[in-house]
C-alpha cells in the first residue's frame, strides 16, 4: 500500500524532474550536445574526446562565436552503456534541444545513437563505428572519421615498401576494434605482397601474452603488427621485447597515448623502436616547412596547451574530439541557421554537413555527399616512432 504510493510519487518526480531539468536559455546560442562516456568502461576515450570539444567551443566563443552567435556546450554522460546512450541522446534532443549531437565513445554505443538521431531528426556526428556498418548510417548520422582500412594500408605499405618485409605476424585485440582491423587485413596484405603467417588474439583485459609471443617468436614472421585499444596492447609490446623479439613492431594509436608512453617508453625505444600512427598535430614540430598543414597543427597544439586544464599536449582523442567540433563549426558557418527555431536549424545544419566539400582539418580532408555520410575522407596518417624520450617521424 505504502509502497504503491511511493511508487506513484517516484513516477511523478521522475516526470516532473525531467521537465524542470530543461533550462531554456534566454540568449540565443547554438547548442552542441556532447554525448560521451564520462563514467564506466570507455570513460578514458570519452573524457579525452570531450576535452578536445571543449577547447574548440571555448576558443570559438572567445573569438565572438559563429557570426556573433555563441556556442553552448551541453555535456552528457552515456555511462558507457547502450541504455545510457539512448536516454542521453533523447534527453539532449528533447529536453536540452540541442542543434547537433557529437557522440564520443565506442562502436557499439555509436550504433545505438543512430536510430535516436533519426527519430529525433537531429544531426549526429559519430566518433566511432567500424567501417563495416557505414552503409547503415541513415539520413541524420555522419561518421566522417576514416576507416580502419587506412591504418592497415599505412602499416603494410610501410612494412613492405620501406622495410621490404614479406612475412608478418598479427596480434589483434579480441574486440570490435580488432575485428575491424582483421576484416581489412587479408586483402590489403596481399596487395602489398605480404603474407600474414600468423594471427593471434588477446583479450582487452589480458595480462600475460607470453604464450602468444612464444608462438610468434617461433614463426618466421619478420615483423609484428599489434592492434589494441588499451593497456593490453602496450603490455604486448613490452612482453614482446621482454621475450627477445627484435623485429619491427607497429601498434595502434592507443598504444601511443601519453600514459602508455610514460609507462612503457623504455620498451618503445628499444631498437627497432615501436611504430605507431599519429595525427600531424602530435608531431607538428617535425613536419617539413613546406607542409601546408604545419601552421594549422601548430596553432591547434598551442591553443590546446593553453586551454587544457591541467595544461598538457593534445593526444590522439583530444585531436579527434576537436576535429568533430571543427567539422560542425564549418557547417554552422556555411548554413548560418537561426538558433531560435531548433527544428529548422537542425535540418539546415544537416544539409550543410552533407554538402561539406574539401574541408581541410587536423587529421583529414573531408568531402561528403547525400549518398555518402561516411565521405571520401583523406586521412593524414603519420607514422611516428620513439627516441630519446620524444616522438619523431619515422624516417622513410
Amino acid at each position: 500500500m505504502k509502497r504503491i504510493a511511493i511508487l506513484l510519487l517516484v513516477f511523478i518526480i521522475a516526470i516532473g524532474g525531467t521537465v524542470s531539468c530543461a533550462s531554456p536559455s534566454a540568449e540565443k546560442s547554438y547548442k552542441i550536445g556532447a554525448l560521451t562516456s564520462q563514467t564506466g568502461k570507455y570513460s578514458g576515450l570519452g573524457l579525452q574526446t570531450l576535452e578536445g570539444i571543449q577547447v574548440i567551443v571555448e576558443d570559438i566563443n572567445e573569438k565572438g562565436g559563429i557570426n556573433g552567435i555563441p556556442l553552448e556546450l551541453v555535456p552528457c554522460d552515456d555511462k558507457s552503456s547502450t541504455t545510457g546512450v539512448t536516454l542521453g541522446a533523447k534527453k539532449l534532443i528533447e529536453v536540452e534541444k540541442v542543434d547537433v549531437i557529437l557522440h564520443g565513445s565506442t562502436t557499439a554505443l555509436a550504433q545505438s545513437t543512430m536510430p535516436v538521431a533519426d527519430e529525433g531528426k537531429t544531426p549526429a556526428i559519430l566518433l566511432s563505428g567500424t567501417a563495416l556498418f557505414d552503409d547503415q548510417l541513415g539520413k541524420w548520422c555522419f561518421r566522417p572519421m576514416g576507416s580502419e582500412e587506412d591504418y592497415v594500408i599505412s602499416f603494410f605499405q610501410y612494412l613492405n615498401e620501406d622495410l621490404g618485409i614479406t612475412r608478418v605476424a598479427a596480434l589483434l585485440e579480441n574486440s570490435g576494434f580488432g575485428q575491424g582491423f582483421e576484416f581489412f587485413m587479408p586483402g590489403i596484405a596481399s596487395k602489398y605482397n605480404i603474407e600474414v603467417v600468423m594471427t593471434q588474439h588477446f583479450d582487452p583485459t589480458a595480462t600475460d601474452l607470453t604464450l602468444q609471443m612464444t608462438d610468434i617468436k617461433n614463426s618466421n614472421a619478420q615483423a609484428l603488427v599489434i592492434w589494441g585499444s588499451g593497456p593490453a596492447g602496450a603490455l604486448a609490446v613490452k612482453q614482446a621485447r621482454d621475450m627477445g623479439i627484435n623485429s619491427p613492431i607497429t601498434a595502434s594509436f592507443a598504444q601511443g597515448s601519453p600514459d602508455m608512453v610514460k609507462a612503457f617508453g623504455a620498451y618503445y625505444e628499444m631498437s627497432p623502436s615501436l611504430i605507431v600512427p599519429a595525427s600531424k598535430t602530435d608531431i607538428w614540430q617535425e613536419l617539413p616547412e613546406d607542409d601546408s598543414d604545419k601552421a594549422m597543427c601548430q596553432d591547434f597544439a598551442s591553443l590546446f596547451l593553453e586551454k587544457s586544464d591541467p595544461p598538457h599536449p593534445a593526444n590522439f582523442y583530444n585531436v579527434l574530439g576537436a576535429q568533430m567540433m571543427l567539422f560542425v563549426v564549418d557547417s554552422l558557418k556555411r548554413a548560418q541557421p537561426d538558433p531560435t527555431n531548433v527544428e529548422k536549424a537542425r535540418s539546415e545544419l544537416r544539409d550543410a554537413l552533407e554538402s561539406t566539400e574539401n574541408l581541410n582539418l587536423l587529421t583529414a580532408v573531408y568531402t561528403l555527399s547525400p549518398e555518402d555520410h561516411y565521405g571520401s575522407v583523406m586521412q593524414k596518417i603519420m607514422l611516428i616512432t620513439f627516441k630519446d624520450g620524444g616522438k619523431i617521424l619515422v624516417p622513410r
Partner: protein
Amino acid sequence: MDLSIVLQFFISGVNLGCIYAALGLGFFIIYSVTRVLNLAQGEFVMLGGMLTVTFYSMGVPILLSTLVAVVIAGLLGGVLYRGVIHPARNLSKATQTFLTVGFAFAIEGIALLIWGWEYRSLPNFLGTPNIHLGGATIIGQTPWVTGITLLVVTGLFFFFGHTIQGKALRACADNPLGAKTIGISVERMSLYAFILAGTLGGIAGAIITPLTMVSYSIGFPMTIKGLLAAFVGGITRAEGVILGGMVLGMAEAIAASLIPSGYHSIFALIILMAVFLCQPRGLLSSPGKT
C-alpha cells in the same frame, strides 16, 4: 611441441595461477568467518596497486611504498566492516553482500576523482631483469609474484594453525554460535577478517601492477577473477583457493597454447563449469575443516 613452448606454458601457468590465488584468498577469509561475499575485494587490489604507484612516484623506495599501500588497504578493509557491514549485521547475508557492491562503487568513484582514468605502471621490483631459460622467458616480476604469494600463503597457514587469533578465526568459521559460547567475540573476529582480506588484496595489487598495469576501473574485473579461483577450489578452505587458482592459471595457459586464439577466456570458464557439475562445492570441499 617445441620445448620452449612447454616451458613457457608452465611458467605462464604458475604465474597466472599465483595471481588468481592471491586474488581469491581474500574471499576465503571473509566468507569463512562472516558468510558474506565481499564483492569489494577487487577494490582493495586496485588501491594496493594505485597507492604503491603513487608513493613510488613520490620517490619512496618500492618495498616501502608497497608496505604503506598494503597497510592503507588493510585499514580500508576495517572501514568496510565498521562502516558498512557492522551496522547492517542484523540484515540478511544477501543484503550485506550487496552493501559491499555499494562500497565498491563508492571506492571506484573516489579513485576516479583522485587519480583520473589513466593507466599507471611500475617497473619490476628492484629492477629484477628478465631471465631467459631455454627459449622461454621469465619476466622479472614473475619470481616476485610467485615468491610473495608463497610467503603470504605460508604466513596464513602459520597464522591459522599456530596463533591464538588465527585459531579463534577458524573457530568462528567453523561454528559461530559455538565460538560465541566459549567467549570469542565474533564481531571482533569479523573485523580482523576484513582487515586481513584488505591487506591481502593490497599485497596482490602491489605485486601484479608491474605485470598488468593499474587504473581506477580494474577493481571489478579483479573481483570476478578472485571469485573464480575461490569457487573452483572451494571457498571454505585456503588450500582450495590456491589449488583453484593454479587450476585456472594452468587452464588459461593450456588454452593460450592449444585452443584457437579468441576462445582462451572461455576455456578457463568452461573448466569452472565442469568443476561445478562434478563437484559443486569446489575441488577441495570437506566442510567444517579449514
